[in-house]
């Protein structure tokens, strides 16, 4: 039996496979397909302090080996999460991580304070990289200074595991990672979607209501892998990798490049059983290669 357990900061995960925010709802939506307790963790849909309707339809465009989305953080807000959702999912035998969003630093802090009180939420993922909102979101994640400011403020009020989700839409992602590490982030996760666009040549109109949207799926995997490797080489805190992971081989590539854990996003839309297939595939790979602990894979790239 191989050992799949990994650690992010002080938090033990039964395996390195998590589902990515915005792609698995609150977990419940995919419970028909898989036994959620098999997962290393579930990062729930991006949450804001107040209810958000998100952007106007159309919010989606298919692209070569990927898709653009412009959901814009539609969610029912903190109260709904805390009073309606949390009681239903808190006892799932897997880590529930909340993806925290805000338009201002005060928003991030206020939401974090409320989540800090929930016993069964052992970690938050601070999303400073959403490309689909007019205020906040990615704006915080594309400069060291603003990233530092929001992480610093949130760190003050949060004593559990703080993961910061980075934007790939930057010149130097390693610098941003180092900046948030410097403010006490326990881990960084990357990448969020790349800013992209789709046009309908027949109507000469943008496909998305917001003109631009976030690109995800296999198309972005080479970029995500490169960024994980750059960030792994720049920081000491664990890196959570994602971007186009469709199968165990993809997941292994991320771990070999330096990811301590990985998240499965868009792949869930194609087949919600993929996260469990990946867990099995990593086990099979380790057995084949006689690797005892998945930790031995992390950053094992020979170059």
């Amino acid at each position, binding site marked *: 039996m191989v050992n799949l357990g990994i650690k992010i900061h002080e938090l033990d995960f039964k395996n390195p496979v998590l589902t990515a925010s*915005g*792609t*698995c*709802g609150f977990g419940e*939506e*995919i419970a*028909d*397909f898989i036994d959620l307790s098999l997962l290393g963790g579930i990062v729930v*849909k991006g949450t804001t302090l107040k209810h958000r*309707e*998100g952007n*106007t*339809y*159309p*919010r*989606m*465009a*298919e*692209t*070569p*080996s*990927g*898709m653009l*989305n412009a*959901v814009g953080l*539609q969610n029912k807000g903190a109260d709904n999460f805390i009073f309606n959702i949390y009681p239903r999912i808190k006892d799932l035998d897997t880590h529930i991580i909340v993806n925290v969003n805000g338009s201002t630093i005060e928003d991030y802090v206020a939401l974090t304070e409320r989540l800090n009180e929930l016993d069964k939420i052992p970690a938050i993922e601070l999303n400073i990289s959403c490309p689909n909102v007019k205020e906040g979101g990615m704006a915080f994640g594309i400069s060291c200074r603003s990233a530092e400011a929001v992480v610093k403020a949130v760190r003050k009020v949060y004593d559990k595991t703080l993961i910061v989700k980075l934007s790939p839409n930057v010149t130097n992602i390693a610098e941003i990672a180092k900046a948030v590490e410097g403010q006490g982030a326990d881990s960084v996760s990357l990448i969020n979607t790349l800013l992209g666009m789709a046009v309908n040549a027949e109507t000469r109109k943008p496909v998305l209501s917001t003109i631009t949207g976030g690109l995800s*799926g*296999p198309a972005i995997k080479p970029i995500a892998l490169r960024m994980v490797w750059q960030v792994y080489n720049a920081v000491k805190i664990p890196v959570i990798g994602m971007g186009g992971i469709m199968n165990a081989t993809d997941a292994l590539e991320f771990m070999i490049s330096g990811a301590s854990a990985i998240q499965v996003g*868009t792949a*869930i*839309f*194609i*087949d*919600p*059983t993929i996260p469990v297939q990946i867990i099995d595939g990593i086990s099979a790979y380790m057995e084949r290669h006689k690797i005892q602990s998945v930790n031995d894979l992390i950053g094992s790239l020979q170059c």
Partner: protein
Amino acid sequence: MRKTVIDFLLLDNKQLNKDNFLLKLRSPIPVPELFPGQFINVLIKDASEIFLRRPFSILDVDFNKQIISILVKILGRGSKKLTEAKEGETINAIVPLGKSFSLPEKSDRILLIGGGSGVAPMLFLSKICGLAPSNVSVLIGARSISDHIDISAYQAYGQFHFTTEDGTLGEKGFVTNHPVFTEKLENYNKIYTCGPNQMMKAIGKVAIEKGIFCEVSLENMMACGFGVCLCCVEDTKTGHKCVCTDGPVFNVNDLKW
């Protein structure tokens, strides 16, 4: 039943006319109870430019033989590729998805209006609604007779009426120009419709005006089909609703039409 990813066997792939194909998919496990308006989300394999699944309404179900039928109209690359699948191939699909039309009550007199590939759930509904055929009218619109599909298997379930834009079958014009719609609407207390949004909006407007119960099955671009991506929203009177889980069937009164 639980939503499940199933590898179906393609039992039969029959071309009905230029653009429409009838696919019969056999499930290796018992098929769930399925209702008109619900859909399956099909993986289009080995197609270089297709990434996401494609949704298709359920046309019919044979519970004993574990067969689900769908009607596929060639619209773009994905539907084209699907119609090229050979018998014996595996078709991977997620089923069952979406909320169905509400089933009529015994006393209802219903008008089902289908346009284009929207006929599938209408035919299914005519078959399982449990009403006397005299209380079921099915109005089907198409561009031309060559776009119409053979509905003889459903003929016994209701009274069928046709329109074509070029007048080659039934009345000339749109479904909303047909006498059952323009003159005899008071014969029905419920309208169910599926087809192009423009057609459904025209129908819905009249239904709202006349205060007739009306359910529509919305067209939409979906990424997941089971409620996780939040891409498929319709802006309803109570905010953004997911067409794949809160719909695709909505009562017109809930829409901002």
